[in-house]
Every structure is written in structure tokens, then in C-alpha cells.
């Protein structure tokens, strides 16, 4: 790891800790590559791990055509989920712990077996899946005003912040994950709808992409990990006092309150 990447990792690490966003990396370091950005993400991760935090899973981002177009990319990105990001279903998240959070509804996968790329297909992901669970991912950017390009969000751990999982775990037997419906409510009012196929055509396909991508860094998706395959609708900006719920039909629901 070169000194510049270490410094960027340092800045992002401190920005998150102090809740003080930094200027876009793409402005400060225009030559930064996506690969560099992943190296930064891994460096911040290892610092968090050496502080005693535990990796509990991964998230895939930029899985919708709309998001990819917005950032001018044609592949997803990913980030790490840590134990201290977990929020209980129907509980409170304090706005002052975050910068400018947004919420995304996703079908979380809990793996029963390890998955190691390359050559992983979505069939392998389905076979390795123990349960699926309704999930709200709270994303936040340590880059000021969400002025992100791909490199910014990759370095910033896929802009991940918190993760709320529902209480119901469901086996995938008999569930069509492409047509599982999702209705998102803000303060009791319906604000978005989506279905599983919004995540790269099939949420398990997004996870296969992740397993293959991670093999470039010699990382395995582990049994027991929670994997988020991507949002089923556009990210929703939230404010203090908002209650957000997502209903996933047979899979149950999940909610969170911002105070």
C-alpha cells in the first residue's frame, strides 16, 4: 500500500469517526483508479478489524441500471458490513450518528456455506443460501453532499452505514426471488415499489458477481455472513422523525425509526 492510499484511508476513517465529510476523492486525486479505491476500502476495513470490529457480511451496490447510468459505470461495487452497523428491527437510529443518510430496501441473504469465486454462478449462490431476510440498508456518504463517482463510493466502503434486518428468516424453497415484491413506506405512506429482479436481474446473480469479484482479492463469502444484493428501488432520503418500513410479501417486513 503506497503512502497516498494510506492517507486517503486515514481521511475516510476519521471522516466516519468524527462525522465530518471530506471533499470528493475524484477531485483531490483525479488519477485514483477503481483498484486503488478497493485497496483503500480494504485498508480502512483492516483498521476497523484491528480495533475489534467484526465483519458480518458484505453489500453489493450499484446493481440497478439507473444507478449505474447515474455514475457512468457498467458494473456494481461492494462494501463490508461490520457488527457495529447492525440495528434491531423496529428500533431507533440516531440522526446525529450519521451525515446524510438514505435508506434502501433489499433482500438479505444469509449463507449456509462458503462461496469462493471465480466461476460462481447464481445457481451456486442459491444452493449455498440458508435463508433470506427483509433488510433495510442505511447508506451514508463520508464524501460531502454525496458528490460521488464510482471511485469515491468504492473507497468509502460502498457508502454503507447501518443495516436493519427483519425478524423473519425464510428458506428459499418455493420462493421466486425475482418476483418477490417490495413496498416501501415512509411514515405510513407508500413511497416506492420494486421486486427482486431489480437487483441485477436476480438478487442471487448480484451475489455471484460479488463472489467472483472478491476472488480477485482472495476473499471468500463465508457461511453465516449476511449478504445484501442491492436495492430494489431508488435510495430514499430520510429526516429526523421518519419511520421507514419495507414489506416483502411472504418474506415479512422490516422497519426503522430515525430520531
Amino acid at each position, binding site marked *: 500500500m503506497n503512502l497516498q492510499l494510506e492517507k486517503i484511508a486515514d481521511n475516510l476513517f476519521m471522516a466516519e469517526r468524527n462525522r465530518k465529510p471530506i471533499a470528493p476523492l475524484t477531485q483531490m486525486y483525479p488519477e485514483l483508479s477503481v483498484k486503488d479505491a478497493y485497496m483503500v476500502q480494504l485498508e480502512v476495513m483492516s483498521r476497523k478489524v484491528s480495533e475489534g470490529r467484526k465483519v458480518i457480511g458484505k453489500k453489493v451496490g450499484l446493481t440497478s441500471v439507473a444507478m449505474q447510468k447515474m455514475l457512468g459505470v457498467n458494473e456494481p461495487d461492494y462494501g463490508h458490513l461490520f457488527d457495529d452497523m447492525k440495528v434491531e428491527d423496529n428500533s431507533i437510529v440516531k440522526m446525529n450518528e450519521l451525515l446524510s443518510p438514505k435508506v434502501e430496501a433489499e433482500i438479505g441473504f444469509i449463507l449456509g456455506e462458503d462461496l469462493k469465486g471465480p466461476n460462481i454462478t447464481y*445457481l451456486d449462490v442459491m444452493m449455498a443460501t440458508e435463508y433470506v431476510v427483509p433488510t433495510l440498508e442505511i447508506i451514508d456518504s463520508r464524501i460531502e453532499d454525496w458528490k460521488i463517482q464510482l471511485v469515491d463510493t468504492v473507497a468509502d466502503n460502498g457508502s454503507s452505514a447501518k443495516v436493519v434486518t427483519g425478524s423473519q428468516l425464510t428458506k*428459499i424453497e418455493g420462493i421466486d426471488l425475482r418476483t418477490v415484491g417490495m413496498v416501501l413506506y415512509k411514515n405510513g405512506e407508500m413511497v416506492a415499489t420494486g421486486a427482486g429482479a431489480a437487483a441485477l*436481474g436476480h438478487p442471487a446473480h448480484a451475489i455471484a458477481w460479488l463472489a467472483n469479484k472478491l476472488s480477485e482479492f482472495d476473499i471468500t463469502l463465508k457461511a453465516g455472513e449476511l449478504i445484501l444484493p442491492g436495492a430494489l428501488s431508488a435510495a430514499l432520503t430520510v429526516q429526523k422523525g421518519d419511520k421507514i418500513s419495507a414489506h416483502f410479501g411472504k418474506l415479512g417486513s422490516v422497519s426503522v425509526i430515525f430520531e
Partner: protein
Amino acid sequence: MGKNQSFGHVLKMEVLRMPLTKGIDNKIVDYLYSAEKERREVEKISDQYPDLNLEEAYRIQEKLIQKREEDGCRRIGLKIGLTSKAKQEMMGVHEAIYGYLTDDMLALEWEPINFQEWIHPKAEPEIAFMIGEDLLGTNVTAEDVIRETKYVAPAIEIIDSRYVNFKFTLADVIADNCSSSKFVVGSKWVSPKTLNLEDIGMVMSKNGEIAQTSSGAAVLGHPAESVAWLVNKLGEAGKGIKKGDIILSGAISEAISFAPNDNILVQFDELGSVSFSCKSSN
């Protein structure tokens, strides 16, 4: 084994039996592999080697798959062919055949496939078995198969013989990995334990018009019988099927051909549906 079948094709010359040496094996493998890569139909190998027996044909198939693996592909399962009485009679055999599936053959329902990837493709409706535990043996029954199958799912196999006009002998088609090309799997997966797979109805449509109707029993009486046949056949060579494998159990109806801009939909009772779209060439 040994006697070769030749259909609608009379050899004008008596060709002497040539033992297949390793070198010739490799030549045939390259011949078939490049035909697939270059989307080019080729003369069937039995024209050159009329005495090619089935054992030799399976050996060539194995080498063909090893070549795919050397190119970065991974074996993810198997397909079973000639699982209908009609097809077996047509080929003059009493047994099914098998080929391997590699990860690059998996096509996605949500991504139209470019017709240029093929020579003269046909689509077959199938029931896919997702295997939950290693299965090895020579006395494996359909009940064993059902017990070790984690899920079944609707599937479409797209076959694309590398031979001119889809005409071949049994040895030819085995060497050509049983015409395997692509396959698509539906997204609802169910346990087979509470289903009567033989009674499950299937409707295949092309562009909204019914093309074929049938039910599971068309596959050797029961699709799980077909998978049991496969395990026992592999068992004779000390091989088996593995946890995580996908097995395409055999065509439930005759294959149908399709063209650019066609959409093929296969609907099953209980299992849901699977479809794919074919893009025009450019």
C-alpha cells in the same frame, strides 16, 4: 457397445477400422471445439471413423470438457439425452446418453441471448435437479435421487449440434457433448419431495403460440428415473454426481427450433415458468 449406427447415410466406401490413438482423439477434440467456438457446422466424425465406439466417444467428450476447463470453465453439472422412447427408437438404442454442463453454458432469463452464439439451435423443456448431497453408486433408485435432491426447477436446454443438419450417429453426439450449448433455469425452486413429477404438465410456447405440450413422465417414465440412470451409468466408471450439481434430466417434449427475436416460454404446473429471448444478430 461397439456397433455404430448410421442414419440416412450410406457409406460408399468400406473404411478400414482404425484404432483411435491418443493423437486422433486430440484431433477430434480440436475439430469439435473449434466448430463450437467458430459457430460452424462440421461433417460428423463417424464419416471419418465409422467404427468409433461409445466408450471412445465418451473419452473424446471427457477430453473436450477438460479443454473447456483449461480455458477457465468449471463443470457445474450434467445433462441427460435420449430420454424419450421415441428418440431412443429413432437412434436404435435402449439407453440414454449424458454430457457435461459448464458455467459458461448458463444463460440468464433476464438477458436476451445473441443468436450469433449458435449454429442451428433448438430449445427443449426440462426439469432441472439441484443436488443436495453427493450421489454415487450402481444401484441408485429414483427414490434415492428424490431424497438427495434439494430443489427442482423449470429449465430450458438449448442444444446446438456441431454437425451438419443436426444429423449424427450415437457416437457422434456423445463425442459432441450431447449437443450441449446453453441452458436457462427458472427462478422458483421447490423441493421434489411432495411433487408427482411424472404428472406435472408442461406447455412450451414460441411467441405466444403453443409449440409443445407434455408432462414429466415423458422423461423415462419419471425424471428422477433418468437421474438415477445417470448416477448408475457414471457409477460403472467410478464417478458420480456431486452436491451442488445441476442435472438437466431430459427433454419433456421434442426440441423446437427458433430464430432471432423469438421468445420461448415454458410453463409448468407447480414449478412455475422459465423463458428466454433471442436477440437479432446485430
